[in-house]
């Protein structure tokens, strides 16, 4: 019998070691495995390399992990946001290494790791500082850069429903990096709002087949889904909490 359910988030993150590479799902706060990150903070592993699209918001979740000094390096596409003060401070103090990757290359590198691809050629980033030093090559008259897969020791992912085999479905844009991160880690840990009976998920609609998942923990209904208290980067009026992009020091529009 296959039963990937574990009883607690503490059990779910058991075994993360100092120096591990940990992928964390989510785009902004949608799909961020909040409870698993909290458990990872409790668990205590340090010197981590984190793979996430962003580099933490506010004082919670990934930001709190950074704040505890547990992270050596971040691989991400969009670290700086209006509420990324924890990252900003550590980065400016030289206490955090940053590997900045264009978002699509980040996704494709994660997918490549899960798919057993040794490397691939992408046109994204060619001619920019982010492709400096990378090997380039022409295909069909267009210059491409060689990109390598990003493997992880652990992936922490938030999904919507799971069964005991680890089959997953997601909810709306909270899907984002989850399905590919599930494929790219040695141990994939998933938190879901609810576990359903085997056979309840439509085989045509399963997004992550169970073979990619090692542990499932049910974290229950998210209150903020109902009461709108946790609305990603927007306030209740829909105004962004993050500045327009690009808006580094100059107005890009």
């Amino acid at each position: 019998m296959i039963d990937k359910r574990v009883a607690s988030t503490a059990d779910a993150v058991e075994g993360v070691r100092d120096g591990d590479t940990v992928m964390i799902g989510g785009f902004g706060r949608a799909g961020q495995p909040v409870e698993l990150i909290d458990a990872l903070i409790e668990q205590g592993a340090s010197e981590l390399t984190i793979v996430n699209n962003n580099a933490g918001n506010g004082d919670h979740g990934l930001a709190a992990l950074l704040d505890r000094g547990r992270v050596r390096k971040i691989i991400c596409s969009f670290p700086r946001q209006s509420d990324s003060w924890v990252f900003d401070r550590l980065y400016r103090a030289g206490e955090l290494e940053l590997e900045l990757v264009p978002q699509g290359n980040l996704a494709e590198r994660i997918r490549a790791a899960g798919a057993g691809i040794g490397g691939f050629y992408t046109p994204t980033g060619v001619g920019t500082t982010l492709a400096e030093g990378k090997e380039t090559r022409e295909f069909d008259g267009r210059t491409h850069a060689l990109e390598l897969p990003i493997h992880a020791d652990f992936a922490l992912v938030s999904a919507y429903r799971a069964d005991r085999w680890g089959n997953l479905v997601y909810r709306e844009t909270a899907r984002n990096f989850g399905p590919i991160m599930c494929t790219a880690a040695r141990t994939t840990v998933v938190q879901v709002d609810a576990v359903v009976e085997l056979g309840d998920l439509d085989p045509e609609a399963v997004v992550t087949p169970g073979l990619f998942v090692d542990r499932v923990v049910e974290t229950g209904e998210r209150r903020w889904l109902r009461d709108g208290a946790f609305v990603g980067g927007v306030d209740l009026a829909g105004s962004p909490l993050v500045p327009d992009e690009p808006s580094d020091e100059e107005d890009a529009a």
Partner: protein
Amino acid sequence: MTTRIDRNALAARIAADIEDGAIVNLGIGAPTLVAEHLPEGAEIILHTENGMLGMGAAPRPGALDPDLINAGKQAVTTVAGASFFHHADSFAMMRGGHLDLCVLGAYQVSQEGDLANWSTGGEGSIPSVGGAMDLAIGAKRVVVMTDLLTRSGESKLVAECAYPLTGVGCVSRVYTDHAVFDVTPEGFAVVETFGDTTVDELRALTGLALTDATTGTAPAAEQTLERSAG
């Protein structure tokens, strides 16, 4: 003398160029305004790179769904015909050339179509690129929506970008508050001016030898201004 149009009018001008049925990604920031001016009755499918096609308008205040956001992390809705997918599939759509149009902001655009919109490269600045580089090279057609001048009055249309590039030779058209410019093998061509702006004035503002490709009274622009006023 009117020599500029405002952002809403500019967004409407851009929207008027978008064909029925187009698959469009609107970069975060000012380009998202274009969504509010899409032609009535047309079906234009909005792509958001965090994993959705068929993005709808902002939700009613009481109906926010934290799982349903756009690339700017703003709450959005879906329209009938929408679909969700993961990040690798979403950027495959871009990189594979399946988007018809992408509208981006810019720090600078060079006369060869190079785009700089992700970093000023300033000392101590923290770089953040997001999907900008993927969008810049991915869509079938990449256009820029921007003020012609920076706050300090410098032209964003330049001979060569001074800021770090987002993409090389990727921009085909630049919509500014003063005029619309096409990137051509001969450099920027003015295809339309707004208000009383003249091509000579634009040459003075940009310091570039612009080609005059305007066609007399620029009826499209007038029409658009009226529409945006209505």
